């Protein structure tokens, strides 16, 4: 999927777990990666979206896609790409299932006490 930052460099971009890797189109090794935690994905003008990070909000990584449809797909995918988003989803589902059934769905897997799945912010 070709992507073009603000200085119009053509790059191949790949989303893998919570990292966005980018490559020169003819190379196998990525030239860089963006960790997608605490970031904001914004749809800009046509075919363009940007990623900015909470600690440096004025700095935008811009990407231009081939089509508007692709652009929308990327925005949607990137918004849900962080580990923290996944964690919130899990906590939400766990809570819902617990409310509906009275049982913690994580118990059967033996992971209900695991710190990373706790409902509140009462972790270390």
């Amino acid at each position, binding site marked *: 999927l070709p992507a073009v930052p603000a200085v119009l460099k053509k790059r191949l971009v790949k989303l893998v777990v919570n990292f966005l890797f980018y490559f020169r189109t003819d190379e196998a090794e990525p030239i860089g990666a963006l960790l997608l935690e605490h970031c904001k994905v914004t749809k800009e003008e046509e075919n363009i979206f940007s990623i900015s990070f909470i600690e440096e909000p004025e700095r935008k990584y811009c990407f231009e896609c081939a089509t508007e449809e692709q652009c929308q797909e990327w925005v949607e*995918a990137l918004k849900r790409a962080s580990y923290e988003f996944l964690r919130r989803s899990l906590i939400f589902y766990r809570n819902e299932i617990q409310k509906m059934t009275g049982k913690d769905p994580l118990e059967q897997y033996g992971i209900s006490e695991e710190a990373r799945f706790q409902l509140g912010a009462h972790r270390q």
Partner: protein
Amino acid sequence: MKLNERSLAFYATCDSPADNAGFLYKRGERHTAYHRRWFVLKGNMLFYFEERDSREPVGVIVLEGCNVELCDSADGGFAFAIRFGGAKSRTYVLAAESQGDMESWVKSLSRASFDYMRLVVRELEKQLQEMSRGLAGGAGGPCKPKPSWLEQPRERLPALPSIPPKENGCAVWNNVPGAARPPDASGCGGHDEEGSPRPPPLPPRRRVSSGEAASAGAAVAQSPSTFCRLHQQYSQEVARLRQDWQQRRRGPRP
């Protein structure tokens, strides 16, 4: 390979809760001496700092496609390893200061990968979908319905899935640029879209319907009791939270 190091450092040091934190001894890469470092686990990233109050991590280990193993006690007691597959991979040997610490770290590291989290989320999503389908069938009365399928044991999700080893996912600050290998080409094409998790659903019924916004109305008519109950539960929670918050604002009673 370039990395948005500031963002990584921010993630490491911001006040979002860590999944585990503590001192561990890390065996050096070239010499076998152990160095005591302050480790912080957040999500699928294991950061390590020179000191507990260091402002920036010294390095990070990305916990994807790795195995966590116990080591022989000959290695220096309470030792365990994070092992990556792949040709030029590296094994990180760490040692805790007690049996309890070691067990706690091995457990939390084994379940730290994004892949694992995604597995669990998908499993729960499926459960929720199945439950809402069961409820739409007309059992939307009491607060705690127990469809018969829930009684069946579900062994599908192991507590510690073994993920086939992928690339070494380490990036170290100010040293040799990260050893992260390019993502597996064959797996990646499908990863871009399928790999990303779906958001938490709106009322579960939405998934039962064909997905069109128009049919959401019909879906509501099918099981209004579910939605009403959800709505009522949330409003009760909100009311309770508000009450708590207001009481706390007033301060302790004399």
